[in-house]
């Protein structure tokens, strides 16, 4: 495990550098993009001199390195800036509640995707050669092939307007010990449906491939030769081993979900981070954009690191960093 410790340390040392590069790039994109928030918010009824004066006072006319330096200096002191979309509200006060919303239902989606995708994939692999295998995969592929931009309005119309079973969107919260929980409302059903169904296809197909590979392994043959029950063979020997590589896609699955959140949240009016990212870019809410990008990058870095570390723990065949043996 000594190799592991130094590996983790090396990865952690890289993290600030990656974040620094990401922040500089994002900051530059924002500042060099044409038009700033002062101009946009002033709208059609604006006096050019007033706009220029406000730009000067807010430091938007300073050279890039000064503005970036100021941002980083404040950032290191824990001041992430203020939103301009919600004038003067501290960025963390706008973003954290939204992040919590997105994390809640995305975690649920991830859980459901695995809960459905793993059995389906395994089952499809075991039914290889029969019509059931491609059929099951095909059904979920359909959902994966239709963009959420199409499924959402259809489901809204069907489940909310026609059948009246569900609200058309939105987000309700219940408070438990001061924590706002939104996933206990039936408004959660629509986002779960539109995000889980397409997610299952990818996972199930991956799982299916893994199971097929494992089924050909000698130890499975041995297990069967020993006369073990098929159920035991599948759960003990097949699924457990096939499951390992699946962990690696967890991080990417999470990143994919976050990207999908932009559409889902905008269309279903869920006040999460995805909808806010889109809005921030349109309104040039510089500090909000920076915070969202940095949170996303940090989440991705830690997710991949966590996956790699877990992987090393559960599969001794993996040797990180090419050391040892």
């Amino acid at each position, binding site marked *: 495990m000594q190799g592991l410790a130094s590996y983790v340390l090396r990865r952690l040392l890289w993290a600030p550098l990656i974040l620094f590069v990401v922040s500089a790039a994002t900051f530059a994109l924002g500042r060099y993009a044409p038009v700033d928030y002062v101009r946009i*918010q002033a709208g059609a009824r604006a006096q050019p001199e007033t706009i220029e004066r406000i730009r000067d006072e807010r430091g938007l006319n300073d050279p890039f390195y000064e503005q970036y330096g100021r941002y980083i200096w404040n950032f290191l002191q824990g001041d992430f800036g203020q939103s301009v979309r919600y*004038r003067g509200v501290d960025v963390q006060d706008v973003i954290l509640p939204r992040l919590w919303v997105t994390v809640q239902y995305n975690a649920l989606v991830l859980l459901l995707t695995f809960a459905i995708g793993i059995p389906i994939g395994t089952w499809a692999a075991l039914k290889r050669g029969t019509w059931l295998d491609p*059929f099951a995969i*095909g059904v979920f592929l*359909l959902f994966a092939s239709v963009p959420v931009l199409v499924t959402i309005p259809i489901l809204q119309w069907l489940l909310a307007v026609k059948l009246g079973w569900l609200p058309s969107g939105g987000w309700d919260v219940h408070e438990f010990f001061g924590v706002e929980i939104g996933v206990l409302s039936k408004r959660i059903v629509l986002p779960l449906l539109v995000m889980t169904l397409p997610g299952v296809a990818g996972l199930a197909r991956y799982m299916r491939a893994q199971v097929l590979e494992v089924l050909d392994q000698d130890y499975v043959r041995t297990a069967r030769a020993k006369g073990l029950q098929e159920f035991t063979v599948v759960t003990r020997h097949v699924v457990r081993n096939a499951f390992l590589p699946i962990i690696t896609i967890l991080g990417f699955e999470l990143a994919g979900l976050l990207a999908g959140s932009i559409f889902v949240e905008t269309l279903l009016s869920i006040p999460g981070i995805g909808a806010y990212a889109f809005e921030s870019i349109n309104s040039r809410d510089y500090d909000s954009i920076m915070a969202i990008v940095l949170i996303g990058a940090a989440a991705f870095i830690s997710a991949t690191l966590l996956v790699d570390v877990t992987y090393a723990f559960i599969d001794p065949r993996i040797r990180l960093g090419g050391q040892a043996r």
Partner: protein
Amino acid sequence: MQTRRLVLVLTGIAVATIVVIGVLVVVLVAGGGDSKGSSGTPKESPGTQTPSLPERVQGELRLVGGDPITLDPACASDVASAEYIVEIYSGLVSFDKDLKMVPDIAQSWDVSPDGTVYTFHLRSNALFHDSSRRVTAADFKFSMERALNPRTQSTVGEVYLDDIVGAKEFINGKAKEVSGIKAKDDNTLEITIDQPKPYFLDKLTYPTAYVVDRNQVGDSTCFKGTDWTRNPNATGPFKLKEWALGERIELEPNSNYYLDPKPSLARVTYVLSGSPLIMYENNEVDISPVGINDIERIRDPNEPLHAQFVESDSLNTFYIGFNVKKPPFDDPNVRKALAMATDKELLASNILKALVVPAKGILPPNMPGYNAGLQGLPYDPDQALQLLDQAGGPNVLKDAVLLTSGQGATAGPILDALTAMWKENLKLGFDIQIQAEEFGLFLRDLDEGSFQMFDLGWVADYPDPQNFLDIKLHSSSANNETNYANPQVDSLLEQARTEKDQDRRIKLYQQAEELIVQDSPWIPLYHGKSNALIKPYVHGYTLTPFVIPNLRYVSLSR
């Protein structure tokens, strides 16, 4: 083996599709039969039984609202923010729901004979929401100076208040206070303006002139220290109870409110996101606007919702603007040719499904000075062709680009219809190009004059022709994107600014409008209307043509 697999995958997809479509059809048929069978009962009855809708308070009005940028009256430049500010805060004067100028915190006012000194007599029973104290003239002086102060970084302060004597000196840092605003005593506020401007009172109805609690706002600016706007201590008919960013805004009535009628609603909840019509049909909101995609269904008399539909004029004008300094539109004949090749009737009735009225001139109906007899440039393809020939034939339009603000893949049905009309009526043989830009970029290009033609709308801030003609088409106005400059028009507009005789003033504006329409820096296309579905138990809700406080007139019966 491979083909077999593929066939089976496709079969799986096909079966799933059939199942999905089957479910849709069943629901559709069943749903259709249902609504026919129960046409006697209102369609919302199944919905109202759903008990799980967010706990509805007795006397609660639920609306769809825009997500505001700020609730600081000194800083608000957008309609979404103003919508709440006018209910929470108040000023010296306001418009009632019939658009009549009425006293608000100022009980009455006198105007000096030369029309430049306004003396406001404040009522003594106007309290701040927390009942701690009454509003005094000093509060108004503080609030208006705060809106003008460059430290506050407001984009609108000087737009609405720079007629006041001393405002410019104050903004430039040459004066410590605005000399034209004097608090004579607690009850008396005297405001001196630079010229006798009959529309000055109108400008005071805008939030920049509203009163804020100086003990609360401190030295906050539009961008920093804005925490107090989450819980403002103001003077309007409603108090802000909660503002959950991006989710909802809740107002509750101000029991100390000083005007009649006092608010009768127990609570007003604005939902800040979602699809309004779907929420309305689902009984999640009580009032919803209707968009162009649903308008035909709602207009159908057989539609149960039809009886809940109301429409009303708005004070706005949508137009095509030309850059009159740049070829090819520096030639008035080219502009006129396009104008006369535009069938506005067809556009309004067919493309916009009569959601709008076709525009002949610049001013919208219901605006004082609206000239019902104005002919404008008629739809006349033959003359349009002649004009274009005089200007050099279709080729002058070869490189013309119509700039629009939008992000979609197409420019939308209105611009598509326009370019089709021009192509056909002017026998161009090519389409006039449309360039869509993100709103920010669009604004920048208008500022810089780097465009040939564009489409835009202008919405009234207050019902006075000055708000359209002078601000948009006077040669020295910052908001004149077209660069249009006609000395004769300028002089008419300048005379109208200070003309005290209302009839003469209107005449001057109408003369100016006539000249402008003939010069065609704009093709006025249409005037929008506002519309809404209103649940039958909501009473007293009016669609106002621009943002004015009107919730205190609303009551519920259920």
